[in-house]
């Protein structure tokens, strides 16, 4: 409890991190409010096409070339970006923890095999790999989440492995082994909780990458065709860039601010959780 208070005190003193947190909260509120504010589907053709932002009080953010409300797209898109960003990161973090913990704790051939596998996944260019996975398994929210997870776990695995290897030889773990505690309990109860801080920092920054990856996939036309994503709007708006650039510009700013918010929070977490590094 004392630790949490200390952490919050440090985090709140860091104004960029607080600003980032505020940005993130705005996006979260947008995501939560989307069904209430825009009850219809964001794909519905509700307005006159090519309404510029501010031209019509009913559609404040304007409409695209088909007459879809951009405001609805923006709010519903926030749901998709946040959902995919967080769930894909969760998948990657869980997979990375499992592989990193096994490799770091058991060492020997287990470590060799798992680290070769990690190296292999790290060699494949991540974005191209994600494209291949989504193209082969067809784009749905689930395949996109799994594809982004599949390309981002290696960093976590390496981090956790290093931490676990260092903790493995500490006296308190040796003591656990000496009293005959089973491996699962040592790993879950005594080792992993001590690796939490760096994993949280890495994970928070991975959410930003995941959101950018999702937007890139959707921009290329590899988004789930049933959900409205910011990347999809930009991909469609591209064709009318010359005449109606606001269709492209607005969702891009939304992605930028969301990713910026996450990066600021991630760095704030890093500073608050590793106070020794704060001066750097």
């Amino acid at each position, binding site marked *: 409890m004392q630790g949490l208070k200390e952490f919050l005190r440090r985090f709140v003193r860091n104004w960029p991190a607080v600003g980032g947190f505020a940005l993130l909260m705005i996006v979260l509120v947008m995501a939560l409010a989307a069904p209430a504010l825009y009850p219809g589907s964001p794909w519905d053709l509700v307005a006159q096409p090519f309404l510029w932002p501010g031209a019509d009080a009913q559609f404040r953010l304007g409409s695209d070339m088909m007459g879809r409300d951009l405001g609805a797209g923006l709010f519903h898109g926030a749901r998709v970006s946040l959902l995919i960003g967080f769930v894909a990161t969760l998948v990657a973090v869980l997979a990375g923890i499992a592989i990193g913990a096994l490799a770091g704790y058991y060492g020997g051939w287990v470590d060799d095999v798992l680290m070769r596998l990690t190296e292999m996944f790290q060699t494949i*260019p991540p974005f191209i790999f994600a494209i291949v996975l989504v193209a082969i398994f067809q784009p749905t929210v689930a395949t996109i989440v799994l594809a982004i997870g599949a390309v981002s776990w290696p960093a976590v695995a390496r981090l956790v492995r290093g931490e676990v290897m260092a903790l493995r030889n500490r006296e308190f773990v040796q003591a656990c082994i000496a009293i005959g505690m089973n491996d699962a309990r040592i790993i879950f109860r005594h080792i992993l909780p001590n690796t939490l801080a760096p994993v949280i920092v890495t994970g928070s920054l991975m959410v930003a990458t995941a959101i950018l990856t999702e937007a890139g996939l959707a921009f290329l036309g590899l988004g789930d065709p049933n959900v409205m994503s910011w990347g999809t709007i930009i991909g469609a708006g591209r064709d009318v860039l010359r005449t109606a650039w606001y269709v*492209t510009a607005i969702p891009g700013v939304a992605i930028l601010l969301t990713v910026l918010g996450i990066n600021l929070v991630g760095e704030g977490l890093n500073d608050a959780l590793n106070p020794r590094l704060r001066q750097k």
Partner: protein
Amino acid sequence: MPPTLRFLLRRLGQAIPIILGIAIFNFFLLHMAPGDAVDVLAGEAGGATPEYVAQLKAKFGLDQPMHVQLGKFLWNVATLNLGFSFRHNMPVVDLILARLPATLLLMICAIVLAFSAGLVLGVTAARNLNKAPDRIISVMALLAYATPIFWIGLMLILLFSVKLGWLPSSGMETIGGDLSGAARIWDVARHLVLPAVTLALFFMALYTRLMRASMLEVYGLDYVTVARAKGVGERGIAYRHVLRNALLPMITMLGLQVGSLLGGSVLVETVFGWPGLGRLAFESVFQRDYNLLLGILLLSSALVVLVNLLIDLLYARLDPRIEVA
């Protein structure tokens, strides 16, 4: 045996299992892809008799057991035969090699730009710690780091091609320009500016942040205090003493980012219609040309391995404390 050669051989020994693993992985992905070459051909012929399908399957060896097919596939990969693209009616390797130079040109320009600008900005920020230049550079880097690469490309097209009309917005050369010599180089260079800047921007932000942090770290070391004590000027300290050591993490990062750079070039090439490997990957997705798509994945992974090998050699040359052996 000279140490460099021994090092090279050892690194190749480590790289081969990785490439082999990726090739095996590729094989299984290819098998999970909906529809094989036979389905494509039969479909294009407008439906085919079961006998004809069986005949085709036998012709491509698709009727053989999995491990035989895998063995054949690996042998083909080892002899640089990545299969046939039925869409382009060309071997995959030829298609990729035809598109590789455009991508390499784009990537090299982007990385040189990102590295040099990142270096200059990072050093400037570190030398003016917490003063106005540092604040401005840090905020710009933070913004560039969060910007989707394809979106900034579209915004640059909007500004420099649509509104100002200064630079071409797509392609690599003026169509029907029929230029040669210096005029052609100038034409390609003009087409290259926007895609290269777009691809470079994210990495520029990354290198700026890294260089700043790395400079600050080296500034804290004892030998810098010694240099200052013996009266070396601030400029001399920054450029002659700190910069050189601060460069090493930048070079490591260069190797780590090759893969992301290739991924970024898919988006940039799609935005700018740049006729490279990334655009080929994009096209192959929508033509359901999985042979080609996976060939690109395999060869781009091989490129990552190769570049990292070169960077390790460079690293050992730059920092004598690291031995190649």
